[in-house]
């Protein structure tokens, strides 16, 4: 069980409220896994490649990715990791406020594990989604970065 707890969440989101929301939801679900936060795709890539000055590279990670972000948005981030040999097997859930068909389509083309719309999970919905995620990583073997 312990090694399961070593799975980290990397929340890639520039919205502070969303970050707080995630923190509250994890607390509510009693999920104690570390939550790493990146403001955009560029910072997320730094963390994942161990290039970030403050945040060390997590051994096993589930990425929760917002799409609308400055500098490098979610789609660009997905393109970047799918083109990167060492990151191509990352498990990524899209967590966004966009319901746009184009966004959904484009995201699944990059083999995301799930597409969760933020509105659907507000008012406790996010907690449910996190419960789902909790079950997910307990069941699914995740690739571990070396």
């Amino acid at each position, binding site marked *: 069980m312990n090694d399961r707890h070593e799975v980290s969440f990397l929340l890639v989101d520039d*919205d*502070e*409220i*969303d970050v*707080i*929301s995630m923190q*509250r939801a994890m607390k509510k679900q009693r999920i104690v896994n570390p939550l790493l936060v990146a403001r955009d795709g560029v910072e997320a890539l730094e963390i994942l490649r161990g290039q970030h000055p403050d945040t060390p590279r997590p051994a096993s990670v589930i990425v929760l990715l917002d799409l*609308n972000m400055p500098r490098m948005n979610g789609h660009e981030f997905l393109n970047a990791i799918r083109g990167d040999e060492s990151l191509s097997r990352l498990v990524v859930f899209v967590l966004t*406020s*966009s319901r*746009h068909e184009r966004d959904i389509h484009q995201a699944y083309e990059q083999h995301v594990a799930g597409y969760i719309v*933020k*509105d659907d999970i*507000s*008012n406790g919905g996010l907690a449910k989604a996190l419960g789902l995620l909790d079950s997910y990583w307990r069941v699914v073997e995740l690739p571990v970065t070396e």
Partner: protein
Amino acid sequence: MHTAWMVYRFREGIRLGECILAALLIAGFVMIAITVAKAQRDSALSGMQDRVGGVVERIENDVDARAYALSQIANVFAASDFVTYQAWQTLTIPLLEQFPELTGVAYAPWLEADELDRAMAQGQLQEPSFSMFELSPRGPRPLTASGQHAPLVYVSTRDGNVNALGLDVLSEPRRSKMIQQARAEGTLIFSAPLDLVRQPGNIGILAAAPIFRSTQLQGFVISAFSVQPLVTATLTGSGIQGSQLQLIDSTAQAQSVYPPTGGGVLSPIPKDHLRFHRSTTIAGRVWTTVIDLPAPHAAPWIHAIWLLPTLAVLLVVWLNVTRRVQLERTQAQVEAAISDLVTVNRQLEHRERELQDSLAHINRKNRELESFAYVASHDLKAPLRGIRNLSAWLIEDLAGMDVPETVIDHTRRLTKLTQKMTDLLEGLLGFSRASLDEMTERVDLGELVEKARVRVATEHRQFTWTADPLPVVSTRPGTFERVIRELITNAVVHNPHATPTLCLTLVAEAPLTLRLCDDGEPIPADARDRVFEIFQTLKPTGDDVAGLGLAVVRKLVSYHGGRIQVIDNPNTDGTCIEFTWPCTPVSESLATDINKDTA
């Protein structure tokens, strides 16, 4: 001004070469006409000469005939010493009968002074009281018995007047001259013209035929002719009128014999007449026959020879010029029209460019607007969600704490209002995103409608549903499904009944026309256009209804090329919305094949 222009234009159409050719042609035709006219005139003149010659010849013949007759009488006298009055009468009466112009015939023997007795004996045979006399300046006087004498011993006249009986012809100069000439020449001689005493106004001529026995002159047969009947007889059947003829004795001083005007003055030539002269010597005198004949006129058809072709040539020239002018005018008009067309075309091109620019501008504006609506509503959503979350957390965190109820209430209202605003933004986002960027494919409309119905029933509430069978067509499936779903949603959401009743009718297949009727509250007639406008709701529903569904529907239907309107519900009190959806029908078998393939 118009006429001046026309004249100018007409002059423009004239060609020098053409005019010269026309003039040459006309000149040629005139020459031909002149030649023909000349030939005709020559022929006519020749005919007239012949007629004149004929008349003169006839006069000569007539005179010859009379001279011959007189010569015959003379021959009888020459053959015998003594001709009795009875024999004379026998000879002369037929002569007078045969020649009506002959006024009288007389016999005058040629005598020496000692032979007068013989004459006396003969004269007494006709008139017992016969006496011979001579003319002197003081009047008649008895014959003096000296020298030579030629007394008239026998005189036959038409009227029986024998006043001249016994006259010595040699005593009268004119007669004397005649017989002296006849004696000298031995042939019949005419006298100069003289007035006939018994026929006033008529000219007469005497003729003397000498009688010779061997070379010895015996006497003369003297006759008097009246010219008028002679001319009349001569002209009969000649085609020449007596009024056209003049006869002149040209021997001594010219004297007119016919007509009896006296003197030698010729009458002036009548207008349009030609005068023909013939001179001939008859019986020792020179006679001039003058005949005036009407000048030959060119036949009217001679004019046709040059006039008709000339008119034809002029007509051709005129037609050519007119045609040329017409052609030039038409050309000018065509050129003007082309120029106008070019101008109009240029204007059109300019206008089209403007339109293209406007269209591009509008498209750009549209894209900007859509982009703006999308970005605005999307960017507004993020802080709104933050507010909503924060208010939710506030309620969570305040739970179990001792705070005034109004704080909780206000926080709840805050949450609710935020939710409302989120819904509005969501609707706006949906409206701005509603577009047609979708490919057409073959779809079963019935299936699409069923899919929409299930979705609405799941998302909102259950309702009673009846629908006509719908065809398989080629169209944009997502767009059509959206339209139907929004319409059904609209009908269900606004329906006051616990279980709404909806009915979808296929009104027409081409163009595809559908009608969705419900049993809800009818839409007032004055609000029927307003329901399709954005954010319009007909009653303050507040919470659930954003008022965007029908706006999206109308946008999609009109983008697709259809029309949508609210109509009266023919069956119930509810509302009916009818819309057309242009699409291509697909044959049933083909559709089945496709379904098979898909399966």
